[in-house]
């Protein structure tokens, strides 16, 4: 039995297997995920595992190594978040998000740090040896909202888009602040004296960390887009570039002590547009599925390890300190959100209601980042106290806040996500509005939001797209993309239902016009797009389209007892379409 030889990969695979089996297990019993969020269940499984290991070995189970967390488990989740981030709501609310992320986090750090220091002064708690600096250091790692936990919980409750993006965006961007403050206080702990120069250096460092992260991310993102320009002949490794460049951006940022999370998000958001235009449809699907898979596995593993690491002898249970930590976290978060929202609402037309504010404050979940940071602390005699406090805070937020947020959302009747399908008409209207507002801003001589957006688009189309996109691939506007996506979907549904079999020649025309435009470029490159769409073909396409779209309409509102949806008379439809067409000509 050669266990030593395979031990490490074997154990890793076993852990991942356990995580995945646990996930299957939860979803087998249908009602469970709706009551208890998945993250809670996973921590629970981890607790059980930890208990078993402790019982068997009679020593503390392996604690999640901070390196493993920061280098292997966290990047896939953040990459997934950044790549699929809806950029429109994100940039529309970027001011508010940054305000919460930066000012809010600083407020929380100092608030929690100082109030805990006040608690330490009370003689009865035996905490006098915890200095102000230590408290501030603890504050800096416990104050930050955790993107993994937020994602896990908010994904299941479907609040309205704006609320979701505010909480989520804040949790991602506060990494820059957390990194700076944590490192700052840690270095202060080791320095004999602190001069005011050091404090200013800290403030300056924040800008370096944040902006540096963005720069690193964007440069890797654009390089990735540029690389995919040349991958026409080796489609198989296209998805790999997306992952490699993103991971490199994360590691490079960490290497320079910049914010890795901000870097990987900027990389993903920067490259998404161009990469998606360059890579084939199959590669796109591969990227999507791999990203989701990795982030899902990471997410599960993190929570299980959180559970496992809770058991053991790493803790010093000083209950007054721990309880006050929890209380102060809640109080300062609520105060911070209230004050900041007051300022935001004065400058914004679209106000954040008090219900939304409550959810933002309540949704400030702490998670594995705090946990790993506390283990990275230098060994001093009170470290175990901090570990215990962190564990309790995380368990409290994930279990209690995580479980109760859904009933609260229902109770307060918070505005939920609009569950309607995207329509082409909406895209057209939104785009129209964008151009209209940009035009009005130009006419009135005001350099506002739409003006800059317009300028950026212009810069993009004139310079960036020429460099980063392949020559003969014309960038498609979002209207066209959505339309093609819907058409593909309908064509596939019809093909599956066997409806496209009417005329054998037609599927290929439909194919060449819409489907193959992204998946099989070799067909198009030989002839220009104009040539494939000669009038006879066009008429066919128009007819197919009209028929398909007519099908959407019919299957929508009407339930007819005598005909099944989809079982409509072709002649009837054709007649109606003809009437419509003739009227409009």
């Amino acid at each position, binding site marked *: 039995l050669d266990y030593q030889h395979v031990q490490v990969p074997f154990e890793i695979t076993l852990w991942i297997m356990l995580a995945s089996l646990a996930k299957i297990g939860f979803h087998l019993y249908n009602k469970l995920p709706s009551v208890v969020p998945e993250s809670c269940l996973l921590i629970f499984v981890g607790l059980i595992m930890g208990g078993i290991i402790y019982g068997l070995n009679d020593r503390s189970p392996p604690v999640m190594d901070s390196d493993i967390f920061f280098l292997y488990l966290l990047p896939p989740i953040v990459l997934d978040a950044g790549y699929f981030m809806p950029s429109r709501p994100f940039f529309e609310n970027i001011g508010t998000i940054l305000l919460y992320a930066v000012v809010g986090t600083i407020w929380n750090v100092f608030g929690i740090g100082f109030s805990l220091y006040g608690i330490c002064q009370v003689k009865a708690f035996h905490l006098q040896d915890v200095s102000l600096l230590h408290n501030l250091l603890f504050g800096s790692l416990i104050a930050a909202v955790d993107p993994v936990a937020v994602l896990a919980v908010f994904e299941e409750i479907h609040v309205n888009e704006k609320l979701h993006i505010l909480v989520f965006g804040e949790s991602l961007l506060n990494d820059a602040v957390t990194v700076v403050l944590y490192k700052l206080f840690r270095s202060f702990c080791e320095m004999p004296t602190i001069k005011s120069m050091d404090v200013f250096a800290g403030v300056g460092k924040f800008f370096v960390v944040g902006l540096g992260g963005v720069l690193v991310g964007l440069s890797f993102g654009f390089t990735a887009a540029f690389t995919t320009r040349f991958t026409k002949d080796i489609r198989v490794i296209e998805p790999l570039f997306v992952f490699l460049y993103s991971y490199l951006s994360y590691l490079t940022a960490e290497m320079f002590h910049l914010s890795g999370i901000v870097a990987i998000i900027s990389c993903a958001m920067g490259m998404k547009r161009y990469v998606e235009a360059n890579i084939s449809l199959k590669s796109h699907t591969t990227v999507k599925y791999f990203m989701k898979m990795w982030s899902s596995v990471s997410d599960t593993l993190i929570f299980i390890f959180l559970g496992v690491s809770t058991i053991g002898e790493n803790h010093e249970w000083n209950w007054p300190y721990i309880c006050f930590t929890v209380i102060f976290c809640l109080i300062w978060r609520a105060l911070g959100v209230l004050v900041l929202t007051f300022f935001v609402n004065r400058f914004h037309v679209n106000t954040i209601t008090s219900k939304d504010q409550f959810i933002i404050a309540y949704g400030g979940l702490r998670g594995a980042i705090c946990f790993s940071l506390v283990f990275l602390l230098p060994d001093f005699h009170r470290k175990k106290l901090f570990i215990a406090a962190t564990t309790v805070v995380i368990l409290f937020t994930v279990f209690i806040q995580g479980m109760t947020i859904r009933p609260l959302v229902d109770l307060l009747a918070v505005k939920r996500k609009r569950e309607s399908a995207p329509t082409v008409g909406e895209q*057209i209207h939104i785009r129209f*509005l964008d151009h209209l507002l940009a035009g009005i801003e130009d*006419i*009135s001589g005001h350099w*506002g939001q739409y003006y800059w957006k317009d300028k950026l688009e212009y810069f993009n189309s004139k310079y960036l797209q020429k460099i980063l996109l392949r020559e003969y691939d014309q960038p498609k506007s979002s209207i066209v993309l959505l*339309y093609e996506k819907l058409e593909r979907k309908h064509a596939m549904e019809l093909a599956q239902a066997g409806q496209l079999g009417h005329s054998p020649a037609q599927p290929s025309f439909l194919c060449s016009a819409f489907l193959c435009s992204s998946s099989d470029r070799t067909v198009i490159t030989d002839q220009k797009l104009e040539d494939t769409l000669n009038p006879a073909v066009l008429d066919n396409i128009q007819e197919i389209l009209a028929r398909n779209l007519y099908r959407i309409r019919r299957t929508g509102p009407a339930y007819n007892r005598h005909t099944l949806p989809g079982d409509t008379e072709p002649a009837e439809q054709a007649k109606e379409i003809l009437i419509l067409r003739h009227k409009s000509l």
Partner: protein
Amino acid sequence: TGGVPRVPAPVTSVLSLAVTSEQIEHLHRRFKQLSQDQLTIRKENFDSIPDLEFNPIRGKIVHAFFDKRNLRQESDGLADEINFEDFLTIMSYFRPIEMNMDEEQLDRFRKEKLKFLFHMYDSDHDGKITLQEYRNVVEELLSGNPHLEKESARSIADGAMMEAASICVGQMGPDQVYEGITFEDFLKMWQGIDIETKMHVRFLNVDTIAHCY
């Protein structure tokens, strides 16, 4: 002309007093710049705005300024030139929502903005957006892309029109014909989008509401 602009009394009543005098001054300055110190602007004056050139719906925007329906005049058609009062009238369509509006005011506010948009879509002024007009809009929107097929723009417009028909009319009988999108249908289509908060330009933020009857 110089110094503090003499704001004529009809202006303030027309705008329902939602723009401060500071902003009126700023707009007046801009108006003078565009009109080259004349009292009225013509369509050609809008050519002097460099950034507007790249806007795909430039024609429609400029047209909207001269559209008599937007200028709250009872007549129809296009004005040849507009004065500062008309300029302000058009700008007032883009003022932001006010905190103390009640339900009825909010509804009127929203309808006003949507009517402005409707007039932009409905270029032949017949009160309906026909398929051809919709196609025209989509073609203009996608005109920034030289390689995109005119036919693709047409089919997209066709698709959007069908969607609109399904929202507005629901199921249609076999002999029914969908003429075009009326204003009521247009309102239905925009139900999901909160136009009151989206369609505004920030400089028109209200600080005080000047009552100068």
